């Protein structure tokens, strides 16, 4: 076996291993989400410290798990074009496992409950949770950050080595007659994603270093507004590029089913370079209600959030429509999931654009409307893209129950996000362990009833996910 073949086998095995790990973590985190909704619906009553702890694990865990799922899929698909380091991939997987164990211990045993965004200075609130949990979370997220940074830098290295500086971001398509070898859209999307991701992970690491300094020396304090900017620059971008990884999957795999090429051109190059700019400044919309933030940054946040719809819809959505429209494709699980995922991405994106309007955010900020947005993005967008990849990757054949599982996920998913949106419109605040003590009957009723109904939809979703898993696992041997 040659070195290239050995490399291919190692990447395939690692992809299988990490993908199955991601599937297990995803299911556990969905169950935590179900538990939270059941508790908010007053069907059972979780102790508040446990609720906030599992809320933290659910948020941090989902952001991390889906990012890892996305970057793994992208790495496998990219390995057709570039040489990635398998040694680094193994190291990253090890670091990620240690980080996950740390987060599980800090939240489930230590009851650390400062939320996925660990908003400064809440982690240091005296008596809220044991001191050891704070350093466990800081170090665990640092380990995850190191793994993600190394992984992204390796992708960037591998792409630049092959496609050079005028190719890796598709700049050569700016000229009328691009020369040299073709750059697949997946490569451009991956470059944009990992540049944004690596850059902002560095800022995230800086923030975590400051957290560590304060943990070592509790008398030291830092500027809360600066810390909030850092955490959302890091967190928002990581979540956003997870979605880009999903789009990379669609650009790369969809043509296999439609039989139509989806090649790079100047529109794709312009669109994704614009996306790189917008993704780095759109995070300002998380800080609209921080009136101490310079007003100009709020305006930039809204303008960037609005403009990000241009490349997304004009290029990606129209490109995808041109793939599907009268293509003669057979609606197998993977293309169906990809089509539906784009619909979820659009819907989630529009809900976000509405909320990124400052005068609207004034009412929706930190209500369940926001929760509706990112669950649509993730659950009905990225997760479907990820499952499409997994189906394609394992070459899953059982199409009958696969479609049933997909429809169950859709019913469950849209039910869940509709309940969040309805509650948001009724001014139900997010991140409330219980609605019982809210002094308005209408808000209590809305919060509890939507949560209870969402619990039923969550059960439908869970059954759908389990059916998907059953089919995937029956084909696992295809890739081992």
């Amino acid at each position, binding site marked *: 076996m040659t070195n290239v073949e050995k490399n291919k086998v190692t990447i395939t095995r690692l992809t299988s291993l990490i993908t199955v790990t991601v599937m297990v973590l995803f299911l556990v985190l969905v169950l935590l989400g179900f538990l939270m909704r059941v508790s908010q619906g007053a069907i059972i009553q979780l102790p508040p410290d446990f609720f906030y702890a599992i809320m933290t694990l659910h948020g941090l865990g989902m952001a991390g798990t889906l990012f890892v799922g996305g970057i793994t899929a992208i790495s496998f698909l990219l390995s057709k074009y570039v040489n990635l380091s398998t040694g680094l991939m193994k190291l990253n997987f090890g670091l990620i496992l240690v980080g996950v164990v740390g987060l599980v211990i800090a939240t489930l045993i230590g009851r650390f409950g400062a939320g996925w965004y660990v908003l400064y200075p809440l982690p240091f609130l005296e008596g809220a949770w044991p001191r050891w949990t704070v350093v466990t979370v800081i170090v665990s997220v640092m380990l995850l950050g190191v793994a993600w940074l190394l992984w992204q830098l390796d992708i960037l290295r591998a792409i630049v080595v092959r496609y050079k500086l005028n190719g890796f971001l598709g700049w050569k398509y700016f000229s009328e007659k691009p020369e040299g070898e073709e750059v697949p859209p997946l490569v451009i999307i991956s470059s944009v994603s990992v540049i944004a991701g690596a850059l902002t992970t560095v800022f995230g690491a800086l923030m975590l270093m400051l957290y560590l300094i304060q943990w070592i020396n509790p008398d030291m304090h830092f500027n809360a507004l600066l810390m909030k900017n850092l955490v959302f620059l890091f967190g928002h971008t990581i979540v956003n590029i997870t979605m880009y990884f999903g789009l990379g999957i669609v650009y790369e795999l969809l043509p296999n089913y439609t039989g139509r090429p989806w090649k790079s051109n100047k529109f794709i190059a312009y669109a994704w370079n614009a996306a790189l700019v917008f993704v780095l400044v759109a995070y300002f919309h998380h800080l609209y209600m921080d009136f101490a933030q310079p007003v100009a940054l709020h305006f930039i946040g809204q303008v960037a959030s609005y403009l990000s719809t241009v490349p997304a819809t004009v290029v990606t959505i129209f490109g995808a429509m041109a793939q599907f429209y009268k293509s003669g494709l057979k609606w197998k699980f993977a293309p169906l999931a990809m089509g539906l995922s784009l*619909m979820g991405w659009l819907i989630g994106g529009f809900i976000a654009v509405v909320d990124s309007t400052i005068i609207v955010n004034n009412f929706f900020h930190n209500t369940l409307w926001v929760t509706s947005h990112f669950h649509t993005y993730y659950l009905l967008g990225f997760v479907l893209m990820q499952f499409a990849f997994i189906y394609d990757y394992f070459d899953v054949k059982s199409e009958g129950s696969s479609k049933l599982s997909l429809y169950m996920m859709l019913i469950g998913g849209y039910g869940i996000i509709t309940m969040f949106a309805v509650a948001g419109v009724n001014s139900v605040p997010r991140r409330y362990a219980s609605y019982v003590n809210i002094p308005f009957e209408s808000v209590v009723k809305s919060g509890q009833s939507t949560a209870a109904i969402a619990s039923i939809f969550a059960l439908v979703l869970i059954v759908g996910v389990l059916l998907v898993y059953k089919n995937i696992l029956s084909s696992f041997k295809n890739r081992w």
Partner: protein
Amino acid sequence: MIKIAAAVTAVVIFLIVLIALIIGKSASQKKDGVQAGLYKIRSLYFYFLIAAIVGVLFITLKPGAMPYTSLQSGEPALVVNVTARTWSWDLSTNQIPENSLVEFDVQSEDVTHGFGIYSPEGKILAQTQVMPGYTNRLRYTFTKPGNYKIMCMELCGVSHHNMMYDLFVGQTSDLKTEASKKGETK
């Protein structure tokens, strides 16, 4: 505003689903050379989208409509100093005159909280974050008398969901004198 946002969202989602159904239904009937037609529509869509974005930005980014005091004109009739701590609120007064511009100067003694004003019907009216080290100024004119509530809108620990306070809005003659003395009137 909430109703407009929800209605626009519902209409757009309906359109997205409709287009998805049309595209989805067409997908299984093969016909070559149809992409050019779609790309023509794309040009139109591009110009429509740019015009829509410019128009909506123009309407929604008017400085006077922003919640930020640096862009607002007029002097408040009453300034209420608000201090947040886990898990309680301390207001210099909670007796608020109706139809008067009131400024809430909010500060935190510990972690970040969210200062959200709810109407007597349970609808959120305005909010700002309460961040340690900063004083955020939120202005609001209450046009109806009643019992309003302050609710915490930012995760601040295990009792975050219990952090509430009363605000009484009425005509000056109806408000409690003792409490209103604590307010700083400009």
